[in-house]
């Protein structure tokens, strides 16, 4: 029973990790671009949520919407103004620019909010739980987050495969050079991808803010979780990413059960194990 409970908590945590991963995966898929500051963007969203709920006194739902819109807008602008200028075959410039952004964000947050650990209260929602049977219970908040994660991934999947925008994003992923010959502006498409990714990051960050304590330095480890979920699940498969997030979450939950010091390590080891056994990921889409 104990073990089932642990696995259940891990699965629910995995939903959040899948959200971390979805944005990273989207940006890599469309423009072969890895944002080293991805985790720091998640933390920025968490702090924006803190400001919205705690300082401005907004309802958490309004807070989430506000942060999503804000982050998407900033993502769009940032891609067009800064990141598009360093995108080419050379991977160093984007890695370096986002590495620089990561340092800038972390230290700006430290300067503004101090190193103190923060948490956004979810008005009692965060402690309520749903009793399943006997000793088995799931927290309402983790459950809601998990369902939201599935919802977000479902929406992404729909947009990607059933809309003109999704078509354009997939085409850009295939062959960006000739996308302008279709009459579309690459810079705009890239920025739209980043805007969507940033919106997802915002949802992930606001959830993180309500679920756990956070401080300005936790971004990099969120980047690594996101990355691991993508690789475990297999690139280019968004449901695979959800599975990757769940595997990572379960591995961490089991590790934590053994010893608190093993939680993160167990997740990393699960990732390395997948890298040994199936470097292309467990659910990689076969390339035609």
């Amino acid at each position, binding site marked *: 029973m104990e073990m089932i409970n642990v696995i259940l908590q891990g699965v629910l945590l995995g939903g959040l990790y899948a959200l971390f991963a979805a944005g990273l995966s989207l940006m890599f898929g469309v423009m072969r671009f890895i944002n080293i500051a991805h985790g720091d963007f998640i933390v920025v969203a968490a702090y924006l949520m803190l400001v919205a709920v705690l300082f401005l006194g907004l309802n958490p739902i309004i807070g989430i919407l506000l942060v999503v819109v804000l982050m998407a807008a900033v993502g769009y602008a940032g891609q067009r103004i800064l990141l598009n200028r360093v995108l080419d075959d050379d991977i160093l410039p984007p890695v370096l620019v986002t590495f620089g952004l990561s340092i800038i964000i972390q230290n700006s947050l430290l300067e503004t909010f101090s190193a103190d650990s923060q948490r956004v209260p979810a008005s009692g929602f965060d402690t309520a739980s749903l009793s399943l049977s006997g000793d088995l219970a799931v927290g309402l908040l983790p459950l809601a987050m998990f369902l939201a994660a599935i919802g977000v991934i479902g929406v992404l999947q729909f947009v990607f495969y059933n809309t*003109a925008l999704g078509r354009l994003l997939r085409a850009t992923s295939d062959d960006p050079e000739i996308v302008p010959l279709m009459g579309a502006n690459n810079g705009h498409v890239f920025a739209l991808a980043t805007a969507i990714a940033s919106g997802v990051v915002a949802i992930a960050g606001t959830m993180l803010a309500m679920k756990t304590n956070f401080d300005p330095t936790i971004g990099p480890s969120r980047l690594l979780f996101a990355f691991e979920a993508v690789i475990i699940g297999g690139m280019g498969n968004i449901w695979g990413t959800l599975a990757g997030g769940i595997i990572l979450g379960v591995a961490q939950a089991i590790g934590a059960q053994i010893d608190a010091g093993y939680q993160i390590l167990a997740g990393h080891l699960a990732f390395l194990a997948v890298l040994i056994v199936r470097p292309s990921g467990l659910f990689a889409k076969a390339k035609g």
Partner: protein
Amino acid sequence: MTKLLETQDLKAFYGDFQALFGVDIAVDEGETVAIIGANGAGKSTLLRSLTGLHPVPGQSIGFCGTAISGLAANRIHQLGLAMVPEGRRLFPSLSVEENLKIGASGRRKGPWSLDEVYRLFPALLERKRHGGSELSGGQQQMVAIGRALMSNPKLLLCDELSLGLAPKIVREIYAAVPLIRERGTSLVVIEQDIAQALKVADRVYCLQEGRVSLEGEPADLTRDEIAKAYLGTEEAA
């Protein structure tokens, strides 16, 4: 007749390497122009320069009376200049129909629509849900042409339509050219298959080492003239 496309002293560079040395060509409205030349003569560079994929210095390209050199490729496309790129370059993760639809991203109005493209190439209709890689080479070429037509271009640039295709398929593809012209689209075709080029074109340019070595109407050109323009003086001598 008005000039649809005109280049004056068009030069193109790849770093230190100069690929085009002042090319002057013109395409009138309603015309089909063929550009022939050996490998490395600069044909593809010329097309890439016209579409904006390869930036060129100066104000050397005019399209519908506007200077388009320096414009982004998608802006040029929106003015009505589409291309069928060398090697087809279909989007592999998109189905046939999605490949066609994406050609209309610029939202230009005109005679071409999904239905019209299927009417032109009925083979595509039955395969509209297939991925591009499941098609034969000829069908892929049809998708590439259809995709370009979906933008309702005034001018369609075709790079090596016949490359790698069986003669029968090439004839099928070229049968579409008059139908495309009927709807008011002019064409520029790059061809290595000289006979095919001469058959379809109103006018021919021959490129040699980045320069126009010959220009004229197919009927006026002799075999020797073409051979000389194509291969260069020393071989002809």
